[in-house]
Each structure stands twice: as structure tokens, then as C-alpha cells.
């Protein structure tokens, strides 16, 4: 796997392995775009903590920001899960091949009881 993709994937999984950040993502998914100030509203954490969480999510490519006059908005990126999806399809191919070989290996070494 190219190093850049591996790093990106690590960032996505690390970003989502935190309850508050997952809740932020889910809230953004439900509400669409939100003013940065409004993101913090339901959470019992300081604005600076929210700001750090948003930074982690942004670095992972999960959210993006938009500035309009004095307002700052955040939303979930459309291609947020692309690294996860490509990782999964690669793993799927590898394991499918391995299970094919497992099936043949077992068949070759197991007497067919039903036939006797």
C-alpha cells in the first residue's frame, strides 16, 4: 500500500476512534453544514477542545471548512470514506483468494464421507 494512503487510512480510523469526534461527524451528517460555533452546542466540552477535534477530523479528510464573511462553517466531505473503501476491497481480494486455496486444500486432505 502506498505510504500516503496508509497514513490517510490511519488518520481516518484514529479520528473516528473517539466518541466525541464520532458524535460531531454524526451531527454534521444529520444537520448538514453547521456554523463552527453551533457544532459545540450539544457537547459538554470547551470550545477549544471542539476546535481540536475539528482539526483532527479535517486532517483525516473527514470534514471540510468554508468561510463566508465572518462565519465559519464545517461539513462532512463527500469522499470522506474513500481510503477505507479502497483498503476494504484490497483485503477482500486477498482473503477471497486465501479462502479459495483453503477450500481446495481441505478438499484434497479430507476423505469424502458422503460418497462411501
Amino acid at each position, binding site marked *: 500500500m502506498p505510504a500516503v494512503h496508509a497514513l490517510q*487510512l490511519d488518520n481516518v480510523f484514529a479520528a*473516528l*476512534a473517539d466518541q466525541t469526534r*464520532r458524535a460531531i461527524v454524526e451531527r454534521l451528517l444529520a444537520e448538514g453544514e453547521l456554523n463552527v460555533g453551533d457544532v459545540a452546542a450539544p457537547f459538554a466540552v470547551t470550545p477549544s477542545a471542539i476546535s481540536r477535534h475539528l482539526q483532527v477530523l479535517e486532517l483525516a479528510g473527514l470534514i471540510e471548512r468554508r468561510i463566508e464573511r465572518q462565519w465559519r462553517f464545517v461539513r462532512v466531505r463527500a469522499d*470522506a470514506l474513500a481510503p477505507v473503501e479502497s483498503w*476494504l476491497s484490497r*483485503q477482500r481480494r486477498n482473503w477471497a483468494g486465501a479462502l479459495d486455496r483453503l477450500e481446495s*486444500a*481441505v478438499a484434497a486432505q*479430507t476423505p469424502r464421507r458422503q460418497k462411501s
Partner: protein
Amino acid sequence: MSDHTMEETVLRLERLIPAPPEVLFAFWTEPAKLLTWWGPDGYEASVHSLDTEPGGRWRITLRRSGSGVRAVSGVYRIVEPPRRLAFTWAWEDESGTRGQETEVTVTFEATPGGTRLVLVQQRFESKQACDNHIVGWSSSFDRLTKTAR
């Protein structure tokens, strides 16, 4: 992408194999049997360790003529013959540093024709993160894949 589900963010493969669970389980835990299927065509697999007990380590290398050796290794989390096997999984780079860690769970369920083998692989940041958050992840991913785009 609107029809994506959690299935696509957690790898899950299912096979019906005409052999009893005990037989199949041994193909995962006995080095000689594991080597009959583990390595892809053109690769020569070697088992360096396969300590199949909870907390035990496993490490397998794959060698391909004309290219280098790659190792994959991990630690067994659950060993319940002949029903369930769970282990961590990570490829090592040239210097032996382990890359992204994942957890693989294999279940062997007896069926009239043999065994239903289910393999699940998922990513996690740490064991604790996995224990605490795997359920949350799944629902997050589920919604994320459904909505993001």
C-alpha cells in the same frame, strides 16, 4: 454510494466448506496445514511462530523469487477450538516495523454439509479503542457511507 452499508466498511466473508469444524480449525492452527493454503500462488510461505493460545504470537513470511520477503504478524486474542479464532494482523516493513494493525475474527459453525466459515476483519486504533468503539464505528460508518455524497 447511497446504498452502501456497514458491510462495506467492515470486511466480512462467508464460505460453506464441506468439512467438519475440527478439521477446518486445524488448517488455521497447525503450521503444516496452514502453509498448504496461506501463501498466494508464486509465494513461498514460512511459519516463524504460531503460538495458538490467547496472548500467543504468530508470524508468517512470504517470499517471492525475484523480490523480497514480506512478513505479517500478530497476537492471538481468542482461541476456542473448533469454534472461534481471533487475532491481530499487521504487515511488517523492511525494518520489521509493524504497520497498520487490524483484528481478524474467524468463526467455524457446524452445518449439515460441513462448516460455515465467517471471516471478519476490521481496523482499530488500539485494542482499547476497538473494545470501546467498534460498535460506534459501525453505526458511524453506516451513516457516513449512506449520507456522505
